[in-house]
């Protein structure tokens, strides 16, 4: 396994800059997730690391070794695609054996059999080895493609949204298995997704990419608790963060022109106009709360209920555990956890505190 480093990567396509001065590194044994909306440049990054795409500027290093002129086959990376990753004309066994049969590796028949069987064991697909890949379910297919990556212990795993075409239950199950596998095998993994929950749940560290630029790198806690821009604050977390325009006067903050007023933090120097972000879990229902609003919508999800509370012109989302028994139109009192409020400038950047 290896340490992967990207230095100032820029990649242009006719008419678009897919990547602009992107630098980050994936440490040995780390599970790094690149998170970003569609068109952010996630796939382009992976392809550049695999050598399938050549960057216009910058360098890629594996363990300090320059990779820029190394062909894809010699980089020794494994790639798992979102779809189309299994060779449809081969059996599952042959698919798993394919990387081992490469002329670069010259593995003996006996060893191939052993390794394929071991891999199949780990992924619970031993019973499928003889099947043609066309007859597998979506989840089984994705297991086999992950198998094809781990069968040969490459220097780094690159995964391009491998779970996004699966149904919700399978995605949950594979998410857990993938994470367990990565932790127990200690493999260096770069995982690409546009799904914030996948990023939060699996990553050791997350890199957020938007329009070709890397805007924040950090642990899931960093990204969730200290998003560096409103874009990231809205990207992660479900239900979505409450985001309001706010004014400050004489140490009192007013949000969305309503009668929700709160004290400004003592240490920070806030301008007159800015934005505040409020996670739904930081809007606490409390019979003695100092704010109040009307319940306009309740969305019971089972483990928790999302409440939409209308207070003047402000709609706040709040979550309460379990399935709530409030009725629409009820007047609800609540408090706001001031210490968890996020402050952003009008340009969307977080104020340092």
């Amino acid at each position, binding site marked *: 396994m290896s340490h992967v480093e990207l230095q100032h990567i820029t990649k242009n396509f006719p008419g678009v800059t897919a990547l602009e001065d992107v630098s980050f590194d994936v440490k040995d044994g780390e599970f790094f997730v690149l998170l970003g909306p569609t068109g952010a440049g996630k796939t382009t990054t992976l392809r550049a690391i695999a050598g399938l795409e050549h960057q216009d500027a910058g360098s890629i290093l594996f363990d300090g070794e320059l990779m820029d002129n190394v062909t894809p086959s010699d980089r020794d990376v494994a790639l798992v695609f979102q779809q189309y990753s299994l060779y449809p004309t081969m059996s599952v066994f042959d698919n798993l054996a394919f990387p081992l049969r490469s002329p670069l590796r010259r593995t003996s028949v006996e060893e191939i059999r052993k390794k394929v069987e071991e891999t199949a064991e780990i992924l619970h697909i031993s019973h499928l080895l003889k099947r043609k890949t066309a007859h597998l379910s979506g989840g089984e297919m994705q297991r086999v493609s992950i198998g094809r990556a781990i069968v040969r212990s490459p220097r780094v795993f690159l995964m391009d949204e491998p779970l996004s075409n699966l149904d919700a239950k399978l995605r949950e199950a594979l998410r857990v298995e993938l994470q*367990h596998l990565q932790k127990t095998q200690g493999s260096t993994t770069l995982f690409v997704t546009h799904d914030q929950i996948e990023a939060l749940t699996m990553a050791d560290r997350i890199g957020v990419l938007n329009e070709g630029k890397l805007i924040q790198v950090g642990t899931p806690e960093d990204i969730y608790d200290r998003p560096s821009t409103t874009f990231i604050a809205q990207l992660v977390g*479900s239900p979505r963060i409450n985001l309001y325009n706010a004014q400050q006067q004489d140490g009192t903050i007013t949000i969305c022109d309503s009668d929700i007023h709160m004290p400004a933090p003592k240490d920070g120097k806030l301008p007159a106009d800015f934005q505040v972000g409020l996670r739904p879990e930081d809007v606490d229902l409390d019979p003695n709360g100092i704010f109040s609003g009307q319940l306009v919508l309740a969305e019971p999800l089972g*483990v928790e209920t999302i409440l939409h509370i209308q207070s003047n012109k402000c709609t706040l989302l709040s979550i309460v555990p379990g399935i709530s028994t409030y009725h629409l139109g009820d007047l609800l009192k609540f408090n706001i956890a001031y210490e968890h409020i996020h402050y952003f400038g009008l340009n969307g950047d977080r104020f340092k505190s």
Partner: protein
Amino acid sequence: MSTIELRQVEKKFGDLHAVKPLDLTIQDGEFIVLLGPSGCGKTTTLRMISGLETVSGGTIWLNGRNVTWLHPSARDIAFVFQFYALYPHLTVWRNIAFPLQAQGESRETVDKRVTEVAQLLRIEHLLGAHPGQLSGGDQQRVALARALVRRPAAFLMDEPLGALDADFRESMRSEIKRLHVLQHATTVYVTHDQIEAMAMGDRIVVMSEAAIQQIGTPSDVYNDPSNLFVARFIGSPGMNLVPGKYADRVVQMAGLDNRYAVPQGWHTALNKGLDGGSDIVVGFRPEAAQINDRGSLVGKVYASEMQGSSAVLHLTINENEIIHIRTDRLIPYPIDTLIHFDINPQMVRFFNPKTEAAIKPEVAQ
């Protein structure tokens, strides 16, 4: 506005029984969600209600009228498709006005109703645009507007959010629900996403393998699933379902020597529900597990997931079973740590593995 009743409605495509005979009564103004995995017959059921598909048996009643063989256009029902099906060569205004113009409404009425519905959906500024220039979410709003403008007796929606990005889905979901709260039009909504179903439905019809598994409020299907399928399907992650042997008021679970003492009030029910057998499935939601150093149950950490405001721990309790429990996200748990926990006695459920059905407690809990 209207009630919908299906009586023994079924559909066969050649040898394939796509929908087995089902009964369903939808009250006036109710928001009903048909929920189930792919291919379970949701769309087919919806299409039979709309008249786009004929029934192979049974009758459909709309507002007390038998409409089983009535042409779709005569049923006064609006259908919203997964793919918006907007006319690309018409402006948004004309797309929305189209059904009214088809009914030969006067120019003023059309104008008034289009403006109203555009305000409701906050798309007034888009009325002059063509569908191709709109984002997916806006296109879906226009499609909704086109359905709303007719003021039909009922709405049928087939995965209207299926083609949208995840964060868009979340906000469109609450928009549609708010619209329903305002208008109270009878709505049948199809989805395979259980979160959407829970969040939106007044009642949820859980389907699987062409048959109804349970009909109930979100709280019913979440807290009291009628069988193993519903227990597994609802919730993210689903209910933990651990097989074991029941004897002497104790369930012996396979694997890590877990002995679970059944709470008071279940014993007679279990003896009856198991029909004298001893095989049992213990079910509990991830949030029902309470981590406690002296807990009677134990599992080994397999993986842990930070999910934003909370976290989920995945524990192995034997080779095959992984269970999920909700925890405080700030505590890290390395792989293979032993975790002791108890199950909140109010929140435990039992199932008979042979019939897959839930066992009803003696007294209402």
